[in-house]
């Protein structure tokens, strides 16, 4: 289960997340949607502990989390193979003096098989297509056997076939009882892909099952013109807090 309580995150003179509170039960495939600059990635990073909120807290019922970041965060010219990247997911299990064992390699290959890339194990990561890069990150997360998955815009710029593959895999994981949180950018596919949706525009507009929450009214609130009064007031607050 993933829970956030009154998260406030500022950056310089603007509020990125404002009083975000929600709770996601286990076994749910959740999509976070909102306009550009709504703070979706920041929310994900705050849930992961990569960003520290000004106030509020995050609680995850499990310590085992798998992170699938945006593809641009990594230098794809790095001299490393597909298998080696997936093996990184096994590092926490190794003591600092231990070497990679057969069991680790096995687990990595198994994860690669799950995403359909076992035959690419010895490829340089620079040779992968967009969809393959995404699947690589997913395999790396899978090998950790986490209970919660966090994916940041996994479908951006990849081919449709890869997208379908990944969605299918995510649904399988969901059926196994995992919680999966995905930052998503494509509205038309929300009802097809996700069970739950979280509508975000600096503030939390709504969070719940797609059938209940994903309707025109909420979408208008999320994507419509943000209240300038609110933005100004909250911006002013961020400014005063940082002494500017």
């Amino acid at each position, binding site marked *: 289960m993933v829970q956030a309580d009154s998260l406030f995150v500022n950056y310089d003179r603007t509020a990125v997340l404002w009083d975000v509170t929600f709770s996601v039960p286990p076994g749910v495939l959740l999509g976070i949607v909102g306009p550009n600059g709504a703070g979706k990635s920041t929310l994900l990073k705050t849930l992961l502990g990569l960003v520290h909120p000004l106030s509020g807290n995050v609680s995850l019922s499990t310590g085992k989390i798998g992170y699938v970041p945006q593809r641009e965060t990594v230098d794809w010219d790095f001299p490393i193979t597909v298998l080696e990247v997936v093996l990184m997911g096994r590092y926490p299990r190794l003591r600092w003096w231990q070497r990679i064992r057969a069991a680790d390699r096995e687990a990595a290959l198994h994860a690669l098989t799950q995403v359909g890339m076992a035959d690419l194990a010895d490829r340089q990561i620079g040779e992968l297509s967009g969809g393959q890069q995404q699947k690589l990150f997913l395999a790396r997360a899978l090998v950790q056997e986490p209970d919660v998955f966090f994916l940041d815009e996994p479908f951006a710029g990849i081919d449709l076939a890869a997208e379908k593959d990944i969605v299918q895999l995510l649904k399988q994981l969901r059926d196994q009882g995992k919680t999966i949180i995905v930052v998503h950018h494509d509205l038309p596919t929300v009802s097809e892909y996700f069970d739950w949706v979280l509508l975000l525009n600096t503030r939390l507009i709504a969070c719940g099952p797609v059938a209940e929450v994903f309707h025109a009214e909420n979408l208008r609130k999320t994507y419509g013109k943000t209240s300038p*009064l609110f933005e100004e007031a909250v911006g002013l607050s961020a400014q005063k*807090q940082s*002494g500017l």
Partner: protein
Amino acid sequence: MTLVEYFTDPILRAPSIGCMLMCMTASLLGVVLFLQKKLLLSETVSHAAYPGALVGLIALALMGPEFEPYAFAAVLVGAFVFAWAGLWTVRFLEHRFRIHADAALGFSLALFFGFGVLLTSWVQAVFPLWSNQAETLLFGQAATLTDGHLWVYGILTAIVLTFVCACFRALQTLLFDRGSRRIEQAVQILLLLAIVVGIRSAGIILVAGMLIAPAVAARALARSLGPMFIWAAVFGALSGFLGNVLTTHVRLPTGPAIVLVSTGFALAALLVSPGRGLAFRFVRKYRFHLRCREENLLKELWKKGRMVRKGWVGFRLKQQGWVVREGQWLRLTEDGKTKAAGIVRLHRLWELYLTEQLGVEAVRVHRSAEEMEHILTPELEERLTKVLANPEKDPHAQPIPPRRP
């Protein structure tokens, strides 16, 4: 030595004016590089110039000792050619081999400079009379500048100033959304010239420093491009002059002296600039928190009627005329009651706004209102009142104090 003498004395004036001009030129270009986040390009350029300068000297040395007066020109030409080669190498490495800018800059820098080290050793062995010249290339020696050198410095400064003024618009587009390639090339050529000319006074190692500190200082004090250029030029000229003055009192090479002065300016600007300077931010934050505490106390008094004396905050409120002391109690004055009511009004207006307009749950609005009551300006209050159509009750059914007359 009076100030004027630095400009009139035949020995002092060339170094003084020369350093001023050089630093001013460098700082203008520094602003452009700073905003492009390419400051360290100047580092590579200056180090790449080293072997070139030496080649110039060696060429003269081969021709004969009578050519020594031409050293300045020879160094300039050689340095320019090699600095350009260094820049070209960086671009080549980046584009042809997909090497990241960081590594390309570092590699080019190290290679060219290493070649310079090699040439220096040759000069020291084969042309020992010239090795002194070779050594001063590293750290600079403005003290021996003459009026003749000033011509070159002056012309370059004029060119850069004209460029900055004439191409101001183009520079703006360059900095904000990657404008034309020609402008970028022009900037790079001017950079080459500025560095190559500056080597004589500031030396290879630290000439890049001339570009960095004034730009940082300018950024701390200005937001838009025009004022940034002006501040940078001012700081540049000042650093150049004062650095040179410093060298007349302490036996330092010119480069380090100028860098220390300009860094001093940069740090001062960062700390004390009214806009983003650390000192002011600290003070502002502190004063804001103090105001919040005062206003919270006023609110409490408004709700309770009277309270036991509350130490320093209470004292401040008394000073400002919001409260009076009655024995061991504090009470609000008439003015105080109005002010407190105003704060409560803001609190409740905001709560209503959140619940009504933004659909936030009533239980969650209090916290935000506690923060916003200190922030909302009269203008924002006006807009809130309009949007909420002059409300009378907040989400908790408490009355909203009316607007101040």
